């Protein structure tokens, strides 16, 4: 049967992997390539690479997806499926990101700016490759969707819900942005209200934000609608954290912990491969 997934989240700002706290504070971790290689070897089920500064507030031009980073990761030989998020403005951007190495695309700002184009991504990519990323909070008795570029939140609008119900999106990442970066132990962390009040039943969910505690992670993964959970900072705090999480999650329908002593590609950070030609 299909397994639930532990998703390693890599947040990238100005080209560097960072720890992120509540969508507000960021501490540098290092090169995203290094973080990705570690997650790959440690056996995480999927990697979500979110480049958080590719869509601007309107004051400057959008930078578009970070295709150069995707290309570097792809040539590095990651053997773990990769979701890319950040700067997707059009169908062409999404296709380019897939051709550069992503298996799937997550969109956030595009859902707000141009939901019809977000739905149209399923045409060339297939809906299985398209994910909605939604920073949410439960506030004043309703789900509030954060516009992180303009620092305000609104209820989920009808056109967004229509896209989510249309079959053009295969999964939604529910991001508890207020608890993002928190450990989540002792009853804290990811807010169950996001799941309790989620208005699109049948759409598989990836929970993210405040899931650094294995017990909290287990509780969320036990929810039937939750097919995966994302963990960011907590996977970078210690060596082999993925296996430790997986061991703590035994009994859930998940892939067993695995570990590779060396990169799957057999070499580190290959950057000089030609786009076409012989690869030795």
């Amino acid at each position, binding site marked *: *049967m*299909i*397994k*639930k*997934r532990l998703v390693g989240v890599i947040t990238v700002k100005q080209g560097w992997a960072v720890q992120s706290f509540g969508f507000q504070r960021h501490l540098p971790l290092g090169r995203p390539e290094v973080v990705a290689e570690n997650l*790959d070897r440690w*056996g995480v*089920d*999927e990697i979500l690479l979110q480049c958080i500064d590719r869509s601007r507030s309107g004051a400057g031009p959008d930078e578009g997806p970070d295709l150069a980073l995707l*290309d570097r990761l*792809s*040539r*590095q*030989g*990651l*053997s*773990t*499926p*990769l979701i890319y998020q950040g700067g997707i403005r059009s169908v062409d951007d999404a*296709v380019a990101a*897939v*051709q*550069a*190495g*992503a*298996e*799937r695309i997550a969109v956030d700002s595009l859902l707000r700016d141009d939901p019809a184009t977000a739905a149209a991504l399923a*045409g*060339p*990519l*297939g*809906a*299985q*490759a398209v994910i909605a990323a939604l920073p949410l909070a439960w506030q004043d008795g309703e789900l509030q969707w954060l516009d992180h570029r303009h620092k305000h939140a609104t209820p989920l609008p009808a056109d967004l819900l229509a896209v989510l119900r249309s*079959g053009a999106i*295969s*999964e939604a990442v529910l991001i508890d942005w207020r608890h993002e970066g928190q450990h989540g132990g002792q009853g804290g962390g990811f807010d169950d209200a996001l799941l309790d009040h989620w208005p699109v039943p049948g759409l*598989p969910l990836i929970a993210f934000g405040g899931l650094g505690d294995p017990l909290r992670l287990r509780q969320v993964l036990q929810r039937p609608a939750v*097919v*995966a959970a994302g963990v960011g900072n907590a996977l970078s705090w210690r060596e082999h954290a993925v296996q430790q999480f997986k061991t703590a999650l035994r009994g859930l329908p998940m*892939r*067993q912990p*695995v570990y*590779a002593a060396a990169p*799957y*590609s*057999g070499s580190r950070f*290959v950057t000089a*491969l030609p786009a*076409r*030609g*012989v*690869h*030795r």
Partner: protein
Amino acid sequence: MTPRRITAALVDYGAGNLASVARAFTGLGYRCRSSRDPGALATADLLVLPGVGAFPAAMAALHAHHLVDFLGERARAGQPIIGICLGMQLLADNSSEHGLTAGLGLVPGHVRPLPQARWHIGWNSVDVLGDDPLLRPSDGESLYFNHAYAFSAPGPYTVAVSRLDDALDAPVTVAVHRHNIVGLQFHPEKSQGAGQALLRNVVEGLLQ
């Protein structure tokens, strides 16, 4: 004397990410080239047909690059061919994705929407049917899937299946094998150690 290294040629028809597949092959110690030139493809030890996206667009790209007849000729000549994900589906007679589109017709069968779910996304275990020597060592292994349509092939060609929910679910064909042609619905290049082992067995089994 050093044994000759196996050379895999990726069919570059513009659909999907070739670099990840290429790195999977080079990571196993094989040489790998990507090309759409028939001469370069025909001299490789095996052809790899990758692909992501929609079936009609991929077939249109193969036609545009004059690769449809070429792949049929290479299959009949006995050159090993591995289709991955959409590349497996392209081996079929036809697909109903966005209307009926003819495929390469290299493995009998057709591609239709998954019967019991919209999508098959994530890691799933594979049940290898019979004693196919290429796939048998991977029986029970978890591999990464990402698709909405599935290949329905006659019994003799279906060599592995998966089930989406539980043992009572109708099986989904996830690997086909006909003579020198193998199709893999999952992504071995994105399935970590289990995918590497399977890919090695398939390559070396086809070249025996």
